[in-house]
């Protein structure tokens, strides 16, 4: 009878149906994962594809004659006075000498446009400010090419478009090619991107102030959110009386984690800026706002880590005469530490990517100085990306993608570190 039950036609049909169901489920699973991987690949390819070229930039190595008659007609060597000297004339002279046959005023202007005007003049000004004795000498200096020439040589500005619809003239193309042949224009690693603060000229703009700002914001957010979040979790889980009121607090902390981040920005604006009168766009306020954003995440991660520790460990400590506090801090917390740290790092990674709340507290400012302290105006990496993405010129698109790559690398590093840390701490058990 049993044999019949498993081999009858109806049984075989049931079996076939069951297998079909299983097969369809697997297919769905693979399709979902395939879709996710494709989306990720698309994102990475499109961003890395537009951004990777920004890590190199075209530079011009030129001989500048720092003639005294232009810079210090009165013979002064006072660095403060020399700051106001006419460095633009020096750069112009050098550029004109590259192609002495050019005489036309308009053509000369175009020729001057091959180099980054403010990049070159600022560099010379700084050199002379530091060492006034350079006046009268000829120096060989590497300055960035203008963003248009950089984009042209990288192939982003198409040579076959009509001249009238192109930002670079035929004449400039010819000069750039000649200079490249003569070895004056060379592509090099783009230090500017990492070392400079923001600038109005794309070829001079970098993420330094944004990175430093982000680091400061994260430090402030971590210092505030970690103790508050972990402390709240430990208290709620271990010491708080179990009643309606603590349930209510618990629900609210969970809800807080789901509040849109821009709301925290508005809160920061209302409380820190308007009520407490703190300055705009400083990392201190940004960190405080993001601490509010992140602490529920840390609390939730900590609680689930604590709940994951076997109660028998606490029982063991209590049975030896440890107090409740000792049992929690000496036995339970070390076991929950990997989960707590992982949750906190992922919370911090979340904070690093936050843009909206920072916009609300004015961190969207155009900051051309690298901040030295948490009370100086700064911007943050995602905000910098937001600002650059809004600019029209072609060179900004490349730099925006480059900044996104940097942000992604930092995020992946943070998450990777969290995973590594968890594995390491769990192995030690």
């Amino acid at each position, binding site marked *: 009878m049993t044999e019949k039950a498993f081999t009858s036609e109806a049984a075989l049909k049931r079996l076939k149906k069951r297998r079909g169901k299983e097969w369809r489920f697997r297919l769905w699973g693979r399709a979902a994962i395939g879709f996710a991987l494709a989306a990720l690949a698309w994102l990475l390819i499109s961003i890395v594809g537009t951004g990777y070229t920004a890590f190199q930039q075209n530079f011009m190595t030129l001989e500048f004659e720092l003639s005294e008659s232009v810079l210090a007609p009165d013979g002064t060597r006072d660095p403060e006075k020399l700051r106001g000297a006419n460095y633009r004339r020096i750069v112009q002279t050098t550029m004109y000498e590259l192609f002495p046959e050019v005489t036309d005023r308009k053509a000369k202007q175009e020729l001057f446009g091959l180099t980054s005007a403010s990049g070159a003049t600022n560099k010379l000004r700084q050199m002379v400010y530091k060492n006034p004795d350079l006046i009268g000498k000829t120096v060989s200096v590497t300055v960035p090419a203008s963003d248009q020439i950089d984009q042209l040589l990288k192939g982003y500005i198409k040579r076959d478009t009509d001249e009238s619809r192109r930002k670079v003239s035929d004449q400039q193309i010819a000069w750039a090619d000649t200079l490249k042949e003569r070895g004056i224009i060379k592509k090099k690693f783009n230090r500017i991107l990492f070392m400079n603060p923001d600038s109005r000229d794309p070829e001079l703009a970098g993420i330094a102030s944004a990175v430093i700002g982000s680091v400061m914001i994260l430090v402030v957010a971590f210092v505030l959110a970690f103790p508050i979040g972990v402390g709240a979790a430990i208290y709620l889980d271990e010491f708080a009386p179990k009643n309606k009121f603590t349930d209510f607090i618990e629900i609210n902390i969970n809800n807080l984690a789901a509040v849109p981040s821009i709301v925290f920005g508005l809160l920061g604006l209302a409380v820190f800026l308007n009520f407490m009168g703190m300055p705009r766009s400083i990392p201190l306020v940004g960190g405080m706002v993001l601490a509010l954003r992140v602490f529920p995440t840390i609390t939730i991660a900590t609680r689930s880590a604590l709940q994951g520790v076997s109660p*028998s*460990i606490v*029982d063991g400590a*209590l*049975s*030896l*005469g440890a107090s409740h506090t000792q049992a929690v801090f000496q036995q339970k917390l070390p076991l929950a530490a990997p989960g707590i740290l992982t949750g906190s790092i992922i919370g911090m990674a979340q904070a690093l990517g936050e843009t909206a709340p920072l916009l609300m507290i004015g961190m969207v400012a155009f900051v051309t100085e690298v901040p030295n302290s948490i009370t100086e105006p700064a911007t943050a990496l995602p905000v910098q990306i937001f600002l650059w993405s809004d600019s029209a010129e072609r060179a900004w698109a490349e730099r925006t993608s480059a900044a996104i790559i940097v942000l992604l690398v930092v995020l992946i590093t943070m998450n990777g570190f969290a995973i590594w840390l968890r594995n390491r701490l769990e192995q030690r058990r």
Partner: protein
Amino acid sequence: MTETTKPKFTCRDVRVHYGDFEALHGIDIDIPDHGVTAFIGPSGCGKSTFLRTFNRMNDTIDGCRVSGQILMDGEDIYDKNLDPVLLRAQVGMVFQKPNPFPKSIYDNVAYGPRIHGLTSSKAELDVLVEKSLRRAGLWDEVKDRLKLSGTGLSGGQQQRLVIARAIAVNPEVILMDEPASALDPIATAKLEALIEELKERYCIIIVTHSMAQAARVSDKTAFFYMGDLIEFDNTDKIFTNPGNDRTQDYITGRTG
């Protein structure tokens, strides 16, 4: 029962409630000092709950209330002024599932002495750790790997490590809640031999599901049924000539 020795614990009308549910309905029992007292009975009869009243581990359970009187050496252990932490230092406990801390073997044993400040130097602590491990019959097996994690030991070794950990605080009583239920027969035999040795020094109360174990290790046996203490007498009397029909049914396997 030898009436001349003073009992270690004197319990009068001990009731335990979990919320509205009464798990123990007024237990009166005198537990003798030194020797092994076994609590037997079917699952859910309240024997583990009763065991946990002796070191007030029930305090850690939400909604659990203990009423009645439990005197240890004549002192009320549920006195409002008594800190359960001090009580638990005198009444050690071994649990059903071995629960060594995920730390080194040394640190497991040293944890109790450290929190109570029992030793004043590293050397003293070393001596105490060795003494405790020796008493628990584990020293020879672990002396070369004291720095390795206690969770890496076998189940039986872990249970003896937990006993060493309890002994290190120098308690007077050791409570054991089905200590052999997760162990194989060989580890169980070692544990029982250890209990035999320890009873010279400590008052041991053991909850067990195995009647054979109760018969082997204990001097006195208490039979619990549905939250009541049915019978309490010398172990050989309980197992050869029980005074109550329910005890008889249980030990012969007719209920349980």
